[in-house]
């Protein structure tokens, strides 16, 4: 198994490659810095354009002027409309789905790490595969079932379908965290008379707490970012912020200022959370680790 923490911390274990190449070390170094900085700016430009647009006064949206007096008018207008409600819905759905996924997924991940039963690899792979399925495959049956069950356009219904991806995220992420905790600690607790789950609660889980927090954040971000399920399974009551953005795009006569402001608001929590769990990022991506 790859030593995940190495990747997580972006630790450059080796002397940097570029600098080992012989010619004109100093100039290369400076050139490299400039090049990278320019590239970073180019990558960021589309994103920054959205943010500046959200701060432009309405009559300046189409103007070519680079400088303008920033205004929060667009945000104010958003908050007075129905956008706040959809923001709260997003918050509720994401929290609920994250909570439920942790509740079910964390014990399962623990068992999958500790219990070497036959077919374990198969179960683990199946769990990961569910995450690969295109959402349209789940949406059709869920849509039809929700009509009958009355879960259409409800926060609970949406939180439930988000578990189709969140549960497998929890199980996979947490497995690597649990694997990093020595079994001997639990065994010591067992000898002291603790049951499996008591030992888990008292010994293992506290040690895995940072991983747990990172996993929760990932679940939250994935739920927060979903557009497809929310588009189809909500109407008015449970409409989430990403769907509300599209409403601005399509319904409100192309008010670019508001569109940009709603986009900025929706990405804000995600950016903040990402900074919080930055060091677990690669871990999350490789979901189970590359094979050595």
């Amino acid at each position, binding site marked *: 198994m*790859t030593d995940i923490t*190495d*990747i997580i911390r*972006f*630790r450059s*274990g080796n002397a*940097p*490659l*570029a600098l*080992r190449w012989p010619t004109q070390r100093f100039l290369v170094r400076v050139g*490299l*810095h400039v*090049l990278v900085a320019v590239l*970073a700016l180019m*990558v960021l430009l*589309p*994103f920054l*354009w*959205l943010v500046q*647009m959200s701060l432009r006064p309405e009559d300046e949206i189409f103007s*070519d002027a680079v400088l303008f007096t920033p205004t929060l008018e667009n945000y104010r207008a958003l908050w007075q409309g129905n956008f706040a409600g959809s923001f709260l819905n997003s918050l509720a759905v994401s929290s609920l789905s994250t909570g439920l996924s942790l509740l*079910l997924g964390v*014990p*399962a991940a623990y*068992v999958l790490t500790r*219990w070497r039963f036959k077919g*374990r*690899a198969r179960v683990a*792979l199946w769990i*990961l595969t*569910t995450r690969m*399925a*295109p959402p*349209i*495959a*789940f949406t*059709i*049956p869920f849509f*039809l079932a929700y009509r009958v069950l009355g879960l259409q356009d409800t926060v609970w219904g949406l939180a439930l379908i988000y*578990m189709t991806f969140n549960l497998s995220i929890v199980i996979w992420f947490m497995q690597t965290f649990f694997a990093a905790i020595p079994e001997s600690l639990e065994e010591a607790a067992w000898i002291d008379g603790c*049951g*499996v789950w008591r030992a888990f609660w008292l010994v293992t889980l506290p040690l895995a707490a940072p991983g747990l927090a990172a996993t929760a954040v990932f679940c939250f971000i994935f739920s927060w*970012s979903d*557009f497809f399920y929310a588009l*189809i399974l909500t109407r008015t009551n449970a409409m989430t912020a*990403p769907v509300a*953005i*599209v409403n601005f*795009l399509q319904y409100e006569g192309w008010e670019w200022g508001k*569109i940009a402001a709603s*986009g900025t608001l929706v990405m804000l929590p*995600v*950016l903040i959370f*990402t900074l919080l769990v*930055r060091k677990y*990022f690669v871990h999350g991506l*490789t979901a*189970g680790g*590359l*094979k050595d």
Partner: protein
Amino acid sequence: MPGTLSWEASRRRAYLTGLVPALVVLAVITVVPTLFLAGASLTPLSLVDPASLFDFSNPLRNYAELLHDPRFLGSLVMQLQLSALTVTLQLAVGLGLALLLNVRSSFFEAIRTVFLIPMVLPPIVVALIWKIIYTPDVSPLHRFLDFVGLPADSFITSASTALLAVAVADTWQWFPFTMLMILATLQMIPNEPLEAAKIDGANHWQTFRYIIFAYIRPALIVSGLFRLIDSFKAFPLIYVLTDGGPGSATEVTNYYAFVQAFNFSYWGYASAIAIVLLTGVFTLSWAAGRLGWNGDEGE
């Protein structure tokens, strides 16, 4: 302390209590819908006529029709083009930047974080950002092109550029993923072979081709497969940027299934399309598993 056997048994029971609920829920929310979908794909299901749910009189009708539906066949071609385009672009950009950023300094580590931003944005916000870039009225890109005397037609309404425009937007969001995967692998390359190559007088290209590339090949394959699988789910970008157009120039299979189900309520037919997609994705996931992205195979 309990005897070994009963301790083993109780431990086993405890493990089962931990594992089974998650598996049951996961089965209910993934396996059951998939089975339903497979069943529905064999019927002419339409909600106007509830009895159609049990009409298995001609189970293969939807699949037979798919073979003769030019829009569906066209969507497959579109899907393959989009997938090939996005995966190639993302691998190329990701690899280039990873090689560039593989330097240990606080500046470069800070810059890496900047490159991560597109990837964490909600896809709908990414779609929005690119809608602005591709809408001539408000686009900084079009303004720039006009300024340098190279005015261009709107990229999303021209058939020759629409798919590329979608692929570029998708690449902007996802190159950080391939970049990170490759970067992580680059940092695990031991010193010795590089030193040896240097002593043997290998040039940059040779060092890359024979040493570095050998190390990052698995990462390239795995991240490529990940992106390939994800490319079958492309939705928000197409929904916001082109709505499948102009004409059908960006109507990929996933989008076509969405239109058939949620615009026209041809549930049976849409289910058949979804099953085709699902089969494709599972085949790829299986291949990905074989090629070693999950770390559990070695047991």
